[in-house]
């Protein structure tokens, strides 16, 4: 049985619009580009929700040297990945928050602080958050992120959290929302809609 939520990492730096989380090693399948994640703000009843838009694996001179040497052993690889601090930075775009059990889509009143914990969201939280799709505008308006790719990955992931009989309705609703937001750019709209088109099962 998989846990409902999983710790991904700790906040390195944050602003109102987004934050960077550091973690040591990516766990299999977690996190993924487009995942909805949250940071519970300590001593409050607030969770900040965000979407993962970037995962950066940093290098250092030692890693470069090992690659050049070309005689990698599994033990050395484990040492580098799990013992040495190979910093992995995860970029998160803030898309909403939960306060007093109510979900609000938009920027949170306060950003998380350094070392606050980033966790995955459960399927129930994902369904609850995506009941409204107002936050899609935030994604499209965010600068310096691959917004179209993020929307596609996120909506596909969100659809999979719904029961099969309601997935199509969810994606159709999302398509309509995006059509309103991108009615001035039909080429871009078409590209997104084609990629979130429900798959007939």
């Amino acid at each position: 049985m998989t846990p409902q939520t999983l710790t991904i990492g700790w906040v390195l730096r944050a602003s109102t619009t987004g934050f960077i989380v550091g973690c040591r090693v990516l766990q299999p399948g977690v996190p993924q580009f487009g995942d909805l994640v949250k940071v519970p703000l300590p001593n409050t009843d607030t969770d900040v929700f965000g979407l993962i838009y970037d995962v950066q694996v940093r290098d250092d001179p030692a890693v470069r040297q090992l690659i050049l040497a070309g005689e990698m052993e599994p033990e050395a690889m484990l040492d580098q990945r799990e013992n040495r601090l190979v910093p992995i930075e995860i970029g998160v775009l803030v898309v909403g928050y939960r306060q007093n059990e109510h979900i609000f889509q938009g920027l949170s009143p306060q950003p998380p602080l350094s070392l606050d914990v980033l966790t995955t969201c459960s399927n129930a939280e994902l369904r609850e958050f995506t009941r409204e799709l107002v936050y899609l505008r935030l994604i499209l308006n965010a600068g310096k992120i691959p917004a179209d790719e993020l929307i596609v990955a996120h909506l596909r992931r969100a659809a999979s959290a719904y029961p099969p009989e309601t997935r199509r309705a969810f994606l159709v609703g999302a398509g309509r929302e995006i059509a309103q937001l991108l009615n001035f750019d039909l080429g871009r709209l078409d590209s997104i809609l084609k990629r979130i088109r429900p798959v007939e099962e």
Partner: protein
Amino acid sequence: MTLELNQVAPQVKAMGRSLAQQQTTRAEALARARALLLQWSEQQSALHERIRRAEKVQQTQRFDWVGAAPTAEALAQAHPLPAGPEQVTVIASDGSQIYPDAHALTLYYLINVGCIVYRHGSGQKPLAFNPPPALYFEPDDLFDAQGNLISGGEVSVRRDLAELRVLVDEIPKHTHPGEPVLALMDGQIPLRVIDLPFVQQEQQISRYLEMLDIIRHSGALLAGYIDRSRSNFVLSLLHLAGLEPAQITEERLRRNSFHPLTDIDLFGDLLAPGERSALFAVRAKGQERYTQAGHGIHFFYLNVSARPQTPMLARVEIPAWVAEDAAALDALHATLVRQARISGDYPYVLARADELAVISGDERDAVEMMLAVELRRQRLSPDVSHKQRNKNNFRAGKERYA
């Protein structure tokens, strides 16, 4: 900027010219040394006789002949890379320190050791850790009976002892039946005690030898890895070989005709990738206690490179009990090459042990800050010396006003 680089520049040019001119002389000396190596390659008895004469000369003089003695292996023989064990555990430790500083907030010193246990062929994550760092601050730690502040040399000795202690502690925890364990040190095996008073030298060497005994009886192999060695033990032997027995005098022994060549120069082109040189024994008066205790220091040169065009030689020191065991020597030889090739040119575990041990400038500053806070909490008024404060202020950088 206070260094007048324009005045350094012509000196750098002169240095370059001089080094280029030395190449011819060095090439001639190297050719002579290699000819002697081949000529004397299998004349071990005759060489031992000359060593006896050299050591007899030194008995009457204030001079120690330091050089290599041949073993049963032919001097010029290169030993190819053996197959080596598939599963072998390598344990390496390294240490770092903050030396006592009379100009710092207060007198103390700190030793930090890093250790890594790497089990080849296991598919397991290596164990990498730091034993608790040790902060020394009591008067007995800092001063001798005459009130002299502990020297940097003595702190280094204590660090070396701490490094070996970690190996001694870890070996039994990582011993598996039928699987060799290699304890690897960065640098030479003998403890560097030259800066210590004679009595302390003896005490510290005794402690060190006790730990070597424990490693020996554990069944583990022990090696010291010296990268870019400046040693000339074998060249000293060849210089001695080139002297007629009647010519062996203190003056002639001192005037090594191969200076400033090193043994690495000698073996550089003789060892193909993965090959090791013949095994030699170190002959030095300062190492007699190691020999008497059964840990006589032996060494060989090892080309860890995988590419013929770029040899990378290290000097590897081993105690007599490893040198006498052919299977152990092969396992050590193969494992060191395997380790070095992970990172390309230097044993992976030594690089990692150094990384674990090193105390960065920021960490040192953090220790100083913690000390300052604690001393003030204790209503003490720590401060750096006037000299240090002025250095800090003047080195902090100048501001320019337009």
